[in-house]
C-alpha cells in the first residue's frame, strides 16, 4: 500500500474543519496531519508538517486563502494547495489562478468531489481546465472589472500576472524579475484589489462577529 496522502485543513469554521477532516479520515489513503482556523496559525503549522495537500478556505478572519496559498508555495513549492470556498465558481476560478493553487473545491456536496480532488492534486494534476484558466487570465489582464483607467493593471502587475499563470511562486517571480519577495507580495495584493476579488478584511470580520453575538 502506498504512503497515505498527508492533508492540512485551514478553515475558520470549526464544524467545517471537523467535517472535512472526518470525511478525509474515513478514506484509507488519506491522513489529516493538521488543522488551523486562521492565517497566523496556519503558516507555522504548515511549515512544520509539510503536507502533500493543503485545503485553504478562501476567507479567513486575519487574511485570505489566496495570500496564504502564495506564502505556503513560496516556502515550499511541493505543497499543493486547493482553495476551499463557499463563494461561487466565477470568484473561485480567479482566486485559484491568482493563488497559484492546483484548483478549487466549492463547499457543497455535489458528486462528493472533495476526496477525488485531493487524490488528483496529490498526484500532481490540476483541477482547473486549462481553457478556463486561460480565459480567466485573459479576462483579468484585458478587461478590467473596474471601468476606471486608474485601476487598470500596470505593466509590472501584468508581468507578474503572467508569471503567476505559469505557476511560479512569489519567490520564483522575485528571482525572475529581480525583486524582493516582499515586493512581489505587495504587487500581488494590489493586483487582487484591482481585480475586485473579494477579500475579507479584518474590519469586516470584527464587525460581523460583533453583530451576530447579541442575537445568539
Amino acid at each position, binding site marked *: 500500500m502506498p504512503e497515505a496522502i498527508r492533508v492540512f485543513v485551514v478553515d475558520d469554521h470549526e*464544524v467545517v474543519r471537523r467535517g472535512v477532516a*472526518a470525511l478525509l479520515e474515513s478514506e484509507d489513503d488519506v491522513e489529516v496531519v493538521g488543522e488551523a482556523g486562521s492565517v497566523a496559525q496556519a503558516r507555522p503549522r504548515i511549515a512544520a508538517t509539510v503536507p502533500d495537500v493543503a485545503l485553504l478556505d478562501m476567507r479567513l478572519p486575519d487574511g485570505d486563502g489566496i495570500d496564504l496559498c502564495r506564502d505556503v508555495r513560496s516556502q515550499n513549492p511541493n505543497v499543493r494547495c486547493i482553495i476551499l470556498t463557499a463563494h461561487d*465558481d*466565477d470568484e473561485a476560478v480567479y482566486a485559484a489562478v491568482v493563488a497559484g493553487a492546483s484548483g478549487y473545491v466549492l*463547499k*457543497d456536496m455535489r458528486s462528493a468531489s472533495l476526496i477525488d480532488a485531493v487524490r488528483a492534486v496529490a498526484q500532481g494534476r490540476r483541477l482547473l481546465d486549462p*481553457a478556463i484558466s486561460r480565459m480567466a487570465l485573459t479576462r483579468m489582464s484585458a478587461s478590467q*472589472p473596474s471601468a476606471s483607467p486608474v485601476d487598470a493593471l500596470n505593466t509590472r502587475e501584468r508581468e507578474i500576472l503572467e508569471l503567476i499563470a505559469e505557476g511560479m511562486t512569489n519567490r520564483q517571480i522575485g528571482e525572475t524579475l529581480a525583486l524582493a519577495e516582499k515586493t512581489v507580495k505587495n504587487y500581488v495584493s494590489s493586483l487582487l484589489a484591482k481585480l475586485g476579488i473579494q477579500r475579507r478584511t479584518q474590519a469586516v470580520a470584527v464587525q460581523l462577529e460583533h453583530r*451576530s453575538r447579541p442575537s445568539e
Partner: protein
Amino acid sequence: MTEEGFLTFPEEPRAKLDEALSDLVTRASDVLATQGRLRALLKANQLISQQLDLPVVLRRIVETAIDLVRAEFGALGVIGQEGNLEQFIHVGMGTADVERIGHLPEGHGLLGALIVDPHPIRLSHLADDERYSGFPAHHPRMDSFLGVPILVGDRVFGNLYLTNAAAGEFSSDDEELVKALAATAGFAIDNARMFANAQRRQAWFAASAELTVAVAGATDDPLELVVERVRQVACADLVRVLIPSRDSESMIIVRARGQDEDSIVGLEISRKGSVPGRVLQSGKPLLLNEDQVPGASKTLGLGPTMAVPLSTAGKTSGVLAVSRLPGGVPFAPEDLEMVADLAGRVGIALELAAARSDRQHIALMEERGRIARDLHDHVIQQLFATGLELQSIAGTLPAGGGPERLEQAISHIDQSIGQIRTAVFALAPKSRGGQISVRHRIIDLVGELGSALTEKPWVSFEGPVDLVIVGALADDVLAVVRESLTNVAKHASATKASLVVAIRDSGVEIEVQNDGAGHPSARSSGLTNLRERALSRGGDATFSSTDGAATFRWYVPINGRHDA
C-alpha cells in the same frame, strides 16, 4: 300815466343789446355745455381708472367714449406685434349685425391708416376720404368718423374709433375730449396690465413653491404634478415633458396634460427642427408665436408654444413644452421667464428626490449585502458541515436502506446550498465594471418568465458561468433559457421547473426539467431552432421524457474557440 312816461330805447342800440344778450345766453349755455362735458370727461376718467381687469377696462373705455361725444358706434382695436388688429372690442352694434358680417376688421383702410400713423383722424363723411376702403356686406351705414390712438408709455397700444355723431359730425371739441380720454385710457391699460402681470407672477411663484416642495417629497410621479400644475398656471391647452430617446435623433413624450394627453404619451418626435429638439440642443428657453411654430407642432394641433429645459445636475435631461391651441393668446416674454424659473426649481427638486432615492437604494443594497454575507458566512458553512458529517456516517453504515436515505438527505442539502448560493448571488450588485453578468441576466429572465408557471423555476449555476458564457454565446444561452421555459409553461402543464446552467467537462450545459408530461409540441419550431443553435457551435440538444418528468438538455463545447 302817459305813454310818454315810458322809457324808450332807440331801435338800433336795442337791436345791439338783444344781440349781445342772446350772445351772452348762447355763450353761457356753451360754457354750461362745456362744463357739462368736462364733468362727463372727469366722470369717464374716473370710471375707467377704477378698473383693474384689462378686458373690463377696454370695454369701459369704448362705452364712455361713446357717451362723451354722443356717437352711435364705438370700437377699440388692440394692435398686435405684427401691426395687425389683435383684438377688436366694439360697442353699439347688435349681435345679429355682427353675425351677418361674419368677421371682425383686420386693420385695412382707415383703421389701418391710424395704425401706420398714430394721429387723430376726424372726418365728416367716411366715404369721402381716399383711405376709405369700403365696408363689408351687411355692415351698418357709417358716416362721420373720429379715430384717436391710445398710447401706453410711448408705444401705441391701439386706437379708439367712433362713428355717427348724434350732431351729424364730430367737432374739434369732441376730438379734444376723446384725446383726453385716450390719455387716461393709456394709464388705465398700463395699470391693468401691471396688475395682471403681478397676479400672474404671483400665481407662478406660488406654483413654483408648491411644486418644489411636492416634487422633492413626492412618493408618486413628480412629473405628473408638474404638467398638471403648469397647465393650470399657464392657462395652457397642452403641457408636455419630453426626454431624449436612445437613438439620439428623436425625443419621446413621457408626460402630457391637456389636449389628447393619453394618445400622445409615448410618441416620438424628431429632434431636428422641432421646438423641444432645439431647446434640448441649446439648453435655452424658446418662445414661439403661432406662425413661428414648425410644421411638426402644427400637426399636433398646437398654436403658441414655449419650451424650457429641465436640467438635473447641470445637464439638460428633458424639455418642458407649454402650448396653447391655434388662435390662443400668444405667450408673453414674462410667461417664458416664469416657466423657465419654475423648471429650474423643479430640476433641483428632482435632483434632491433622486439623491434621496439613491440613498434609500444604497441602504437597501447594504442590507442585502449583510443578508448575503450572513447566508454565506454562516448558513452555507453549517449546511456544508452537516452534509460532510452525513457523508461520513453513510460510509460506516451497512448497505440497504440507511445509506440510500442518507444519500438522499445529502443531495437535498446540496440543493439547498445551491439555492442559497444563487440567492447570495442575486442579492449582490448586478454590474461589475458596467457589464451585467450573464448569471444576472438569466436570473432576471427567469423572474420575468416565472409568472407563467405555478412556481418560480428553481435556478442553479455550476462552474464559472460568467467567465465562459460571454458575447454571442451569452445571447444563445439566454435564447435557450427563454424558449425552453416558455415551452414548459405553454405545453408541459407543469407546476415545477428547474434550470441548471453549468460549465462541465469543457462545455456549456443547460438543463431544463419539469414535472409535467412530455408533450409532442416539445418538438416545436422554437426547440428546433435551439437545436440548430447548438449544432452550429458543435454541440447538440436533446429532449427526453419519462413518467412525470421531462428534460431538455442543450450542450455546446467551449473548445477554446470562444467569443470572449
